[in-house]
């Protein structure tokens, strides 16, 4: 394993130092491991806090800023943050209108955020949560920890963040977040596994002619392994899983997301296939993103997330945003 790190123990602190140096718009609390907007909480605005294991950059720290999050709590690589971080972030961003936790549905994230929400509640902060669980690759979700939260997290953060900037109350911000999640589905494909600094070797083995369908974003293996195939077929496998569950029609927000090690030129190839698939079904790509947004370290592969838009959601998507990872209108 070769990594651009100083040591396996200092990955998070060193990266936070880099974020602090690179982005004057952010304030990084190294001790508590929280990334804030440098501008601090805005009185009367609902605060948005998210977090999760590191290794998915720019999620979440790269989405702190005007129009999205107020704070992000990075855990160790692929490990949920601890409640203390979230409690600290929650009280710091409370502008008196309460705080929304955006939580990806993993046992660890749910447990730690739930504990944090209780502790913050004890401290008198009003907390609501949105649980993101968009990953259709998880079948039989009744008999599992449920669907995972993946690409839709970005949509929830952007759209709930835009609504929060308007001064909407906590319940409404939480409701729009839940609505975005309910309207979104994702499916991921790995061409290669990733290597965590701590493990130092691939998290699963994948033959030279195999790809893994239904991978999550934690370097965990997916659900089925199939022979390597053209981009067209892989995209169609992903979209048909999404279509079966969501029904693809109308106006859509589409994310073709790289897992970290896939060149952008290949993501555009995948996007071209998404475009033709949706056209064939009479569905429309109203807004889109192509790039590395919710990654899995250096994994080669991609995920597709589709959100069925309403006019209101499109409007909130288009609202100005100014974060290291997503920026327009400012």
């Amino acid at each position, binding site marked *: 394993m070769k990594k651009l790190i100083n040591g396996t123990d200092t990955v998070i602190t060193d990266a936070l130092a880099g974020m602090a140096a690179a982005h004057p718009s952010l304030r990084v609390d190294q001790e508590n491991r929280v990334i804030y907007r440098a501008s601090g909480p805005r009185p009367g605005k609902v605060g948005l806090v998210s977090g999760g*294991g590191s290794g998915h950059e720019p999620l979440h720290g790269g989405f702190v800023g005007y129009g999205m999050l107020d704070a992000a709590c990075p855990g160790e690589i*692929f490990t949920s943050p601890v409640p203390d971080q979230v409690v600290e972030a929650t009280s710091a961003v409370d502008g008196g209108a309460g705080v929304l936790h955006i939580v990806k549905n993993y046992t*660890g994230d749910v*447990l730690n955020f739930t504990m944090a929400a209780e502790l913050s509640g004890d401290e008198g902060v009003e907390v609501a949560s949105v649980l993101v669980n968009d990953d259709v690759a998880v079948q039989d979700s009744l008999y599992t920890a449920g669907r995972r939260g993946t690409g839709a997290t970005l949509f929830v953060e952007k759209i709930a963040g835009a609504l929060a900037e308007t001064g909407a109350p906590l319940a409404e911000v939480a409701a729009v977040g839940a609505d975005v999640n309910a309207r979104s589905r994702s499916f991921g494909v790995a061409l290669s596994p990733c290597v965590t600094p*701590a*493990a130092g070797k691939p*998290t*699963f083995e994948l033959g030279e002619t195999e790809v893994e369908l239904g991978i999550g974003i934690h370097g965990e293996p997916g*659900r089925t392994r199939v022979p390597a195939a053209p981009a067209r077929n892989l995209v169609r496998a992903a979209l048909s899983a999404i279509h079966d569950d969501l029904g693809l029609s109308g106006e859509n927000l589409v994310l073709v997301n790289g897992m970290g090690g896939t060149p952008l030129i290949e993501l555009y190839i995948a996007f071209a296939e998404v475009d033709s698939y949706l056209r064939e079904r009479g569905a429309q790509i109203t807004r889109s993103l192509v790039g590395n947004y919710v990654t899995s370290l250096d994994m080669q592969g991609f995920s597709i997330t589709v959100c069925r838009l309403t006019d209101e959601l499109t409007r909130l998507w288009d609202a100005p945003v100014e974060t290291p990872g997503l920026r327009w209108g400012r």
Partner: protein
Amino acid sequence: MDTPFFTAWFEEITDVVAVQREHLTELDAAIGDADHGANLDRGFKAVREALAAKPPASPGAALVLAGSTLIRKVGGASGPLYGTAFREMGKAVGDAPEVSPELLAEALAAALAGVQKLGSAEEGDKTMVDALAPAVRAFSQAVRDGGDAPEAAARAALEGAAATIPLTARKGRASYLGPRSAGHEDPGAASTALILEALRATGTR
């Protein structure tokens, strides 16, 4: 069992987890996300530091401090779960200066209840519960029968962990694999077995 006993238990856990770190991570790589060894190693090292920095006045205080430290330092699924387990144990023993085997049996049952309340896993879901539940039963049974309770609990935990191998996971990260989770030992069950083996070893010092 007095306060130094519980401090020694955490010493023992810290040592064995450090040694088994790679092994636990490998188990987690197979059906999870390859961080269980690192998580527990980080957590129990913090427990050792916390106990040294603020020596607890009672077994209960030691257990609560250890549990809170795990919650504050581990993250992931195992942090809140193990943290809750030790905190519930601590609350169950209260401020008793000495913990009798009977009280420890109650405390272990409280730990299990805490883990299950938080994580809603049943036995057979391929989680740490599959090692903890039989260990709790074996400990109580041995106490009632006058047997070597820590020995019985350690053995039951080990067997419980081994018995997770053929299971299909229904909780935690491994559940995403569905049938492909079968054939691998659950990392949390394996670490629970280590923790109970550490209890046995501490008792034989």
